[in-house]
């Protein structure tokens, strides 16, 4: 039961990673591609971590997995903010239709 739930979560995470990559390739400009990146971080990694947590051998391992996810959330949120303001200051206009 736990194992199959874990598989479902891992597959869902993988789907978001696929979405992130497709978005990274297909979206038209920097600002929209930020969106693709954060989907992979928030949900892709989040679901993979959740799936692995169900298989983890100890509470400490669960905690470490959770911390890894939180750290990457902070990293990618900050990175997105910094890149967006960099792009704006350098005069890249957002894509319009």
């Amino acid at each position, binding site marked *: 039961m736990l194992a199959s739930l874990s598989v479902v979560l891992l597959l869902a995470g993988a789907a978001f990673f696929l979405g992130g990559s497709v978005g990274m390739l297909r979206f038209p400009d920097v600002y929209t591609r930020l969106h693709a990146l954060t989907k992979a971080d928030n949900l892709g990694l989040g679901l993979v971590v959740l799936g692995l947590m169900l298989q983890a051998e100890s509470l400490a391992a669960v905690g470490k997995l959770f911390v890894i996810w939180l*750290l990457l959330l*902070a*990293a990618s949120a*900050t990175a997105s*903010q*910094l890149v967006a*303001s960099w792009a704006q200051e350098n005069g890249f206009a957002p894509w319009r239709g």
Partner: protein
Amino acid sequence: MAWLTGLPLAVDLVLGTTLLWLAWRALSSPDLFQAVALFIAFGVILGLVWARLDTIDIALAEIALGAGVTGALLLAALSQLQPAEVDARAAPSATGANEHQAGQPGQTAETADADEAQHKPAVFRALLAAVMGLLLLAALFGLGLVTWQLWEPSSGLTQQVNTHLPESGVEHPVTAVLLNFRGYDTLLEIAVLLLALIGVWSLATASNLGDTTPEPVLAALSRLLAPLMILVAAYLVWVGAHAPGGAFQAGSVLGAAGVLLRLSGWRLPAGAAGWPLRLVLALGVAVFAFIGIAVIGLGEPLLGYPTAWAKHAILVIELAATLSIGAILASLFIGGRP
């Protein structure tokens, strides 16, 4: 379902091919920024390759250095190169114009000679490329042959290391090799890092990467991450006694903390930038060399610690080395003598 057994092999093949492709692209890209971005990706893939090879210590060092310091270092170098890069872009078009003039009807003997001189290197270059290509192919063939002959998995020195592990003072074989059995390797590596920093201090000017006030998000991130990095560095030294970790990995994380702090506008207080900084920079080599030589007085060989307190010797050396490596890496990023 026989194809399923091929999955690990498929993973390894994709990793290997991507690694080679990235190496080639990073070296051959004419756009320096793209080369840096590809090199950062190369570091990540290399970390995964080490992880697949079960050399977790190296994977840890590669990821810590690649993600934390090397990328930032290359970007800092790039921003110092920027004016030169613009010059380089302008230069080819200038020579192109000259060549165009040389091809005009009113050609003098002098320019014809110049044409001849330009022609010769082209043939010469092709010849050189052919010779180099042949040599490389031969070397590749030789390497392949040797690998083929060595294909029988040999136990190497693993057996020897495991037999002597109890005498080393630590439980993790890699740490035992690095800090005890082959301590001089590690000592010299730290010395090389120190020499590199002396070189940078003699030649470079400090980068201006963190001079402007940081955005609030960045300030918040460095307040969150810098203490965690110091904590993780301490954890990696501690865990190195019985699992992958150790001074270089911890030092890299510590160095990354320095890089992040510098990027968010932090500066070493003026009082600490003089001899206190130099003391920390030299601490690793000094402590390592001192203990290594002092044991001679106890009748041991150079760098051979008595088993009774090998554990404590290694711990002291690792702590000093971690501090030094961290300080050296951060100083390398900042560049220029403070």
